[in-house]
């Protein structure tokens, strides 16, 4: 429960931190002329690991940086956290934090059928901010002994068990429960504490589940995740997971017991904070959003499409701890394809291995930055690929197909199509700290290939999780800071899908600016252009694609839309979809140099020297 020391309307200073797997980030907010704004940021390496093993040290270091930069004292002298409340000279009125350090929340989920209750349980766990280590189901292709071995080898923080519809047959659900019981799962942190299991299955089986899973297990029962096949009800399970996260998991992580006493609001998993921020964007703009938190250890992808919120987490795709796993999963060649200069494959592999073993280092040279940007494209690409396996239609529900669907086989598993996405939003160290704002715009475009007209947003200095947790107690302040200081409007991407030949005409774009002036651009296949339109205002766009290209209304059909300006501008992308890079290495490098130069992606002189 939140415990505020002052009514929110009387607050003047708020401090929020995020204890990430690599870095602890402090963000300091204050009320200026009656309006809540972001003031300054402080960062320090996270100290969850040995030799420190106390997260509060990293928090204090990050907050100390805020103190140095502002001259405003925040830390109590006794090392007992923050000075709360603000006394007219020092301190803050509210302190809150999110956390993903120490591996975040690691869960195992189980359900009856892989594509039905197990999939729903997976979505609920992910929505709660968890990393799902494995999904066990009756039909997952493994023999019972293999599942048992797997459960025994995992040491999850928590298990979510679903299965069956209310009132349906219970025998198979009990089989899964018996399997878990037989495996005697142990909790990851603290050998002596009871492993929390959340049961969100057929409610008629509760007495039997209680009877079976009582010894050495902290069992919580919540409403069924699939009370009937046609309905998914993840909220009760998600809420229970959050509560147990605080009660059982965080209290066993190094230093968290102390940190929990410092905060006025319960500690929230970082991805849950990020997810709240993404939903805030979708509800405020009333548009379909896909967002990403590209972190050091994990990549979280969020989609809000037609009001449905889904989060996926790729536990081993990230830019520091997991950087070599991106190389492993994507293949070094796929990373190399984005590098516009000659570099030995072994050199790139060794650099990434060195980043993995020293995860807090940052690129100092342009060459190093470009290598990291290349990895980021692949982490994002794989992250979205994974997200699409989670963001699917409910299985087991009859879907009405039209004749056209049958011809197209159009009822695909995932409903996440770039053509229906209106907004792409990014956060995470690499994206938020990119030296030029056009860099995250282009990196995300290369990885996700937006189609038609898509607005691009960016977390300014990585504070979406902070504002997400703040919004739980003070929504107005959170939204004001979010709108004014966090959500950077990078610009708009106008991209045509379809394939063509080099030089073939793709589209004509005519922009009518707010002052009435028009800008017209003709784009041929393979070209990408950036129109500087920095104002936070909107222009009218008329896009005429050639007959084999589609900008949202169908092949060859014109589209008229309002487009948003931003710090980078409006990117016109006629490279086609899917994106194709020349196979010849020299031609590939030339193509990349052409694109990167056209967008002024990197400092001109240093880039020329490199290529």
């Amino acid at each position, binding site marked *: 429960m939140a415990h505020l020391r002052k009514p929110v309307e009387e607050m003047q200073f708020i401090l929020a931190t995020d204890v990430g797997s690599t870095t602890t980030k402090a963000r300091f907010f204050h009320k200026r002329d009656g309006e809540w704004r972001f003031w300054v940021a402080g960062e320090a390496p996270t100290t969850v690991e040995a030799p420190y093993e106390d997260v509060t040290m990293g928090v204090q270091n990050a907050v100390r940086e805020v103190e140095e930069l502002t001259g405003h004292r925040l830390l109590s002298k006794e090392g007992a956290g923050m000075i709360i409340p603000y006394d007219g000279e020092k301190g803050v009125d509210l302190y809150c934090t999110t956390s993903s350090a120490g591996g975040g929340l690691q869960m195992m989920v189980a359900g009856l059928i892989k594509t039905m209750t197990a999939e729903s349980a997976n979505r609920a766990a992910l929505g709660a901010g968890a990393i799902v280590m494995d999904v066990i189901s009756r039909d997952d292709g493994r023999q019972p*002994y293999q599942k048992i071995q797997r459960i025994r080898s995992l040491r999850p923080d928590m298990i979510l068990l679903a299965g069956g519809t209310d009132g349906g047959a219970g025998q*198979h659900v009990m089989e899964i429960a018996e399997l878990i*019981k037989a495996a005697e799962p142990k909790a990851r942190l603290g050998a002596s504490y009871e492993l929390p299991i959340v049961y969100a299955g057929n409610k008629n089986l509760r007495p039997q589940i209680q009877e079976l899973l009582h010894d050495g297990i902290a069992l919580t029962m919540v409403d069924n995740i699939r009370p009937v096949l046609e309905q998914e009800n993840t909220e009760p399970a998600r809420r229970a997971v959050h509560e147990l996260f605080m009660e059982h998991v965080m209290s066993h992580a190094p230093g968290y017991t102390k940190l929990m006493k410092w905060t006025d609001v319960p500690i929230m998993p970082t991805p849950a904070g990020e997810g709240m921020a993404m939903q805030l964007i979708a509800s405020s703009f009333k548009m379909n959003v896909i967002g990403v938190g590209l972190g050091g250890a994990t990549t979280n992808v969020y989609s809000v499409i037609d009001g449905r919120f889904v989060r996926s987490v790729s536990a081993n795709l990230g830019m520091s*701890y997991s950087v070599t796993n991106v190389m492993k999963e994507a293949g070094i060649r796929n990373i190399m394809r984005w590098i516009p200069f000659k570099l030995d494959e072994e050199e790139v592999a060794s650099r990434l291995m060195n980043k993995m073993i*020293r995860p807090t280092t*940052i690129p*100092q040279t342009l*060459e190093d930055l470009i290598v990291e940007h290349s990895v980021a494209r692949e982490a994002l690409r794989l992250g979205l690929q994974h997200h699409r396996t989670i963001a699917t239609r409910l299985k087991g529900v009859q879907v009405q197909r039209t004749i056209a669907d049958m011809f197209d086989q159009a009822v695909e598993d995932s409903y996440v199509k770039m053509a229906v996405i209106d907004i792409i939003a990014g956060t995470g160290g690499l994206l938020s700290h990119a030296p030029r704002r056009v860099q995250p715009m282009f990196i995300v475009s290369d990885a996700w290939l937006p189609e038609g007209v898509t607005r691009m947003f960016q977390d300014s200095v990585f504070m979406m999780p902070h504002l997400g947790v703040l919004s739980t107690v003070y929504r107005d302040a959170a939204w004001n800071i979010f709108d004014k200081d966090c959500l950077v409007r990078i610009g708009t991407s106008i991209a045509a899908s379809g394939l063509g030949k080099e030089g073939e005409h793709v589209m004509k774009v005519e922009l009518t600016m707010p002052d009435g002036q028009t800008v017209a651009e003709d784009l041929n296949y393979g070209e990408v252009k950036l129109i500087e339109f920095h104002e936070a205002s909107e222009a009218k766009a008329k896009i005429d694609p050639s007959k084999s290209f589609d900008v949202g209304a169908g092949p060859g059909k014109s589209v008229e839309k309002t487009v948003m300006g931003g710090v980078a501008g409006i990117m016109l992308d006629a490279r086609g979809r899917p994106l194709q890079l020349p196979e010849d290495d020299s031609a590939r490098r030339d193509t990349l140099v052409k694109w990167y130069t056209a967008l002024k992606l990197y*400092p001109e002189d240093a880039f020329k020297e490199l290529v």
Partner: protein
Amino acid sequence: MPKKTKETSEEAHAYTPGLKVKRSMTVDKLRRLPIQGQVFVKVNDPVEWNTVIARTQISGEPEIIKVASLLGVEAEDIPPFMLKKVGDKVAKGENLAFYSALFGLIKKSVPSTIEGTVESISEITGQVIVRGAPVPVDIDSYIPGKVKEVMPREGAVIQTNAAFIQGIFGIGGETHGKIYVTVETPEDELTPEKLNSDCKGEVIVGGSRVTFEALKKAVEVGVSAIVVGGIRHQDLTEFTHEEIGVAITGQEEVGLTLIITEGFGKMAMSYNTFNLLKSFEGYNACVNGATQIRAGVLRPEIIIPHPGTEEITKDKLSSGMIPGTPIRIIRQPYFGAIGIVHRLPVELQILESESAVRVVEIKLGNGEVVTVPRANVEIIEE
């Protein structure tokens, strides 16, 4: 506008833990059972590296047997057909349940697929769980020394005086052997011709890099462990037969334990580390390649127990960088360079990559002063 407090600039601390390279220190090793069991030692007992200090039994593998479906009866009907009850021992092949109908014309039996104990009989699922015999697990002391502390039923802390060197990355688990330096300088590569049958059971110290061929030869001659500055990514992948994704290692069974002290690629071992290892040539070392760079950092280690006639440096937490602190640069363009902190400007500075970050000015050995991000250095803990 943010106000900068100039007076703090020279005292600005950066928390960048370095790897330990210590000639003499008190090493405490926690040896803990995976689950509770029996501890055989008491405080102040002397131990050798292979002394078994604790033992436990891990519960055996469970086997789920679908008795109801094998008998062809409903789940709730199985009790009368069970020949064994919960807690009974059962041999492999021995019948758990038996069903007879039509005056014995139809007979069905369900034998146990493993030897073990009946753990549960479910009338809801019709399943019987038989648990196999418990598996004994022993924990040895890993390092020679004396027992400092006993955690009843869990394990003990073993203490010794030793030289202690942390590597940056390793593979393979705990092992032992005498230190044998096969190269002249830290820049030399460890190649197959530097290894022979004399290296059997030894902890081999190389220089800047170990080649794939040398690793193969080392396994052939029975080397216990290799400690070297660097390794090429490709060589490691070929040697382990798999690409390392996330750095959680120690379980590999590749025939030896490998520790790299600097990083990937060809990287001369730091003089400190090399000279320290050389000065202990012929000493017994306890080596562990287990590395975990996530959720509880674990670095590989070389522990060389010795009587400790020198002054013991206390193992204390680094208080951070201040001018004069010895440090190593851990990223391009000065990767591997060693120097001392010259200045810690508080203002953000723009790098070649155009990032604005806090930096540290470092005076290198040749007197040159270079500027690098604070995140790209580590403190040398001597």
